[in-house]
């Protein structure tokens, strides 16, 4: 899922205080799971804006609303469209995709992001999320025993480890960050495939990553 974190209140409030009425629009997918922009967080931000406005003497009315997904057109239903038309600005609690899609769907609306979109990650435990995919466009995980060197190695090395690996930890953050290449070697050893790592990997084709510009996937068999 896409993992995000809420922006500081001050940054959000500096945007919304320019308007008389706002809609705090939550997203019921990834950012609900990572507890950053779901129904609960919409309630919290709405309350904060109301309290902030009261403290600062601003006149802002706040509506909260959450839809299933902000990255699919069908979830922007009539009810949501009406609410967006009613207000001066929308504060989207979706990831960067949802915020932009909301703008594309409602070109006349002023939409502010409430989250900083961070990474594609997994829930390690409640309240802890970790990056597991870099969306590089050409998955090589199988060659490394199921551990992605692009995402989990700080240098994205395909032929590691580097000299910064010490006692299984990465020099970037020795307290908290495992060396991905230590994990890969341990895993490949366990699988009995250690000799495969003797092979030197050629440079990866990064044109399928962001280096090739913004990406689009088109599937004619699925188009209507």
């Amino acid at each position: 899922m896409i993992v995000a974190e809420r922006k500081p209140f001050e940054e959000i409030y500096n945007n919304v205080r320019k308007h008389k009425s706002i809609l705090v629009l939550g997203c019921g997918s990834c950012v609900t799971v990572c507890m950053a922009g779901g129904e609960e967080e919409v309630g919290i931000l709405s309350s904060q804006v109301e309290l902030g406005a009261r403290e600062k003497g601003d006149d802002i009315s706040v509506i909260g609303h959450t839809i299933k997904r902000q990255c699919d057109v069908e979830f922007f239903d009539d009810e949501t469209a009406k609410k967006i038309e009613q207000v001066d600005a929308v504060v989207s609690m979706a990831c960067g995709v949802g915020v932009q899609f909301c703008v594309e769907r409602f070109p006349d609306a002023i939409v502010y992001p409430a989250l900083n979109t961070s990474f594609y990650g997994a829930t390690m435990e409640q309240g802890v999320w970790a990056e597991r995919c870099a969306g590089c466009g050409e998955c090589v995980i199988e060659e490394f025993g199921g551990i992605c060197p692009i995402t989990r190695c700080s240098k994205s090395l395909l032929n590691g480890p580097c000299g910064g690996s010490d006692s299984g930890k990465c020099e970037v953050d020795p307290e908290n960050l495992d060396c991905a290449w230590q994990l890969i070697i341990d895993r490949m050893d366990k699988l009995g495939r250690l000799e495969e790592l003797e092979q030197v990997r050629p440079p990866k084709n990064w044109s399928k990553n962001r280096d090739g510009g913004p990406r689009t996937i088109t599937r004619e068999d699925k188009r209507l």
Partner: protein
Amino acid sequence: MNKDPIIIAFCCHYCAFTAADLAGTMRQQYPTNVRIVRLPCTGKVDIGMLLHAFVSGADGVMVAGCEEGSCHFLTGNLRAVKRVAKAKKLLAETGVNPERLDMFHIAASQGPLFAQTATEFTERIKGLNMEISENADQDVSGPEKTSQNCKPMEKNT
């Protein structure tokens, strides 16, 4: 500013709520400003609930749960401590004094402690309300200083 503050007390059924009941049985006096919301455990408290109390007009919110190590559900009160701490930060961001929210640990047998805590917390909130009123009297030039901290809740009598 409301000189007769509204205090919402989220109380655990197994300890603080029973303590409040005991305080009554023992004829202990505590301010009538305190309005108790009974919860099955303070682990039921979430941040949205605490902020919503302030939005709805509460001047102060107390969360009263079991003593550490005594939670009927083992760790509910410890979770509440963390959520109250986070809610205090969120309140401070908006400009609301975080002293208006606090967590207390009161066992079921501590009726007098509940009465004492409710009284002291009410006095604290009255003091904070007074500070705002005094600031408003001293400087009426800017809307930020004259704004009310919390609007009065409609009284249910």
